[in-house]
């Protein structure tokens, strides 16, 4: 039998297995450990309760399927001026990110990371700054086509209710301003606590900390 992999099944099993483990270490485990150290140097950001719940719902409704949260930059053309590193933003992404490409520290401690791989809808990394109106988000979640004609976003009507919330839970709900074209069959509409949390999360996406950090430097 010998050590010939053509005839020795033990060798045939172990050679690809061990080679694979070595490669996995080199291309995934080791870089992950190095980046983990870099991430741990970034202070853990303070997270409000409501946006944190909203973030979980963002994952649960799997919004990341169609929405990215990353502004791509071309690292090869990056410049260092007075110790401030600037990475030029790709043309396609400029509308969402102005002059700032996403940096590693923006994702620090985010679990999971909603970078996304598909942009069927717009990038959401600075929604809170682009679209700060709470009511707009409620209308948009209830009937995306009403405020954004031609949109492919699925309506999330199940996050709203037309029956008045019970008095002891009133605080958790928020009334939605019923506008024309929203398609509500009743005079009044309430956002459920879930909708409230989800919108709070979307509004919290501002990349403000980065801009502030930049200005401070």
């Amino acid at each position, binding site marked *: 039998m010998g050590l010939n992999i053509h005839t020795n099944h033990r060798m045939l099993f172990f050679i690809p297995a061990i*080679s694979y483990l070595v*490669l996995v270490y080199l291309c995934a485990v080791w870089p992950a450990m190095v980046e983990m150290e870099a991430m741990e140097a970034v202070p853990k950001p303070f997270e409000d309760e409501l946006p944190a719940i909203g973030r979980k719902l963002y*994952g649960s409704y799997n919004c990341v399927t169609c929405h990215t949260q990353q502004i791509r930059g071309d690292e090869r053309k990056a410049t260092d001026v007075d110790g401030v590193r600037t990475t030029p933003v790709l043309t396609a992404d400029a509308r969402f990110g102005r002059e700032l490409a996403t940096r590693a520290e923006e994702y*620090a401690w985010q679990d999971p*990371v909603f970078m*996304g791989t*598909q942009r069927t809808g717009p990038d959401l990394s600075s929604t809170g700054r682009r679209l700060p109106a709470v009511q707009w988000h409620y209308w948009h979640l209830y009937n995306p086509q009403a405020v954004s004609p031609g949109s492919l976003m699925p309506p999330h009507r199940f996050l709203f209710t037309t029956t008045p919330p019970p008095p002891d839970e009133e605080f958790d709900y928020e009334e939605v301003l019923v506008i024309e074209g929203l398609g509500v069959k009743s005079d009044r509409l309430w956002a459920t606590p879930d909708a409230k949390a989800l919108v709070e999360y979307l509004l919290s996406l501002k990349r403000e900390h980065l801009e502030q950090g930049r200005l401070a430097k």
Partner: protein
Amino acid sequence: MKIPVGIPVFVAAAGTNPNFAKMVSRWLISAGVWLLFASVVGLLEAFRLVDPEILADYAWLTFGRMRPVHTMTMLFGWASMALVGLAFYVVAKSTLAPMHEPMKKAELFLANLAMVLCNVGVAVGAVAMAMGDVNAGREYREWPWYAMAPVFVAVGICGLLFYRMVARRAVEGIYISCWFVMAACFWMAIVVVMGYQTFWTAGIPDRIVDGFYIHNAVGMWFTPLCVGMTYYALPKLLNKPIYSYALGVLGFFTHLVFYTVIGTHHYIFTPLPMILQTTAVICSVAMIVPVWASTGNFLMTMKGEGLAISHSYSLPFLFVGVVGYGLASVQGSAEALRFVQEVLHFTHYTVGHAHFAMYVFVTFLIWGCIYGLVPRMTGREPPILLVSIHFWLALAGIAVYVIGLSVGGHVQGESWLEGEPMMESVRVSAPYMVWRAVGGLLMVVSHIFFFVCLWRMRPGAFTMAYAGAGK
């Protein structure tokens, strides 16, 4: 006669252990059921990209949740279960195991157990995600851990069984199909462990693991299994040796080296370490070597066999699958390049590529192997007319789908580069969403024909009656 119809099929099937044939069929029929289920879900999603109001009033049916139900069920319910089922037969045959007892009783029990575990995992995963327990942002592992756990155990069991079957082979040499099958099970086990580990779940480390997982789950599981199956089925159905065995070995090792490290090409232009990005781009291009070592090998084996292919009902599937493998992989290499990413990343083009690879390459090869090999195990052939309808509907469907999304993706990407409003990119790519739905519809209809054929090939009275003949 090289065409596997009629008497040669009966002869090949005679003496096959009926319990073994039933076990393999259970894997394949489970896969067929998941194919039907997942493609209906996929079709629903395709129609929703034309009209988002379809079935929009239920949280559990929402687009975001159904999308991973479609992808995960296709990957683990359909492709994985079909390939593992076929692998049991191919490993048994290529190790020259006695077909009246290719596996011991306990092994058969374990193989059946793994089949049940796989089905449980796929079903639990689909229900859990519909209920909102989505491992979000982590593509192709959106299942919560408790759905992946039984599938992981099943992969382990199958790996052990394949190893044992190879270890007690009746020939000295180990055929290349067994190389791919044995290695794939080990690789996949590592990939799942990496995908569900809890050390690097935040920030950039999470994305490094994600890039690794996405591409290794595809490339170190489906690709080697598919290539392994084809290395057995193609020479068998053409009744001639493979063109070059050495090319197969070259393909195996270059695949191992290059495919493992290309995952970061899903994260070009991101803050992931530059060295990983560049390595991924270079090795993505280098993937041309293993891909064409196999594709070229298969094409050279098929050279001059046009008549046999056109008269067979299984070989056309293999032909399309082999060509699809070559083309989809070259497309993938090109997509990794930075200047291509600037236009096409995030667009519908990527979805078209994913379907090109998983459908034209993986699914067509699986169909070719099922139509070519299952009758040789059960002695029952599918109705040829239905196979033809299946073939042409599936081919037309995927062509409409991929062409539509490739053009649509370009249009979408160009619109972004022009700096037009986001909604403009949705508007200009809207017509191609109709192509997608039409293509999807054709594919779903073809799957119904496939399932009827698969059902007609299940082990029956013939398998039982002739079971003892080869003893």
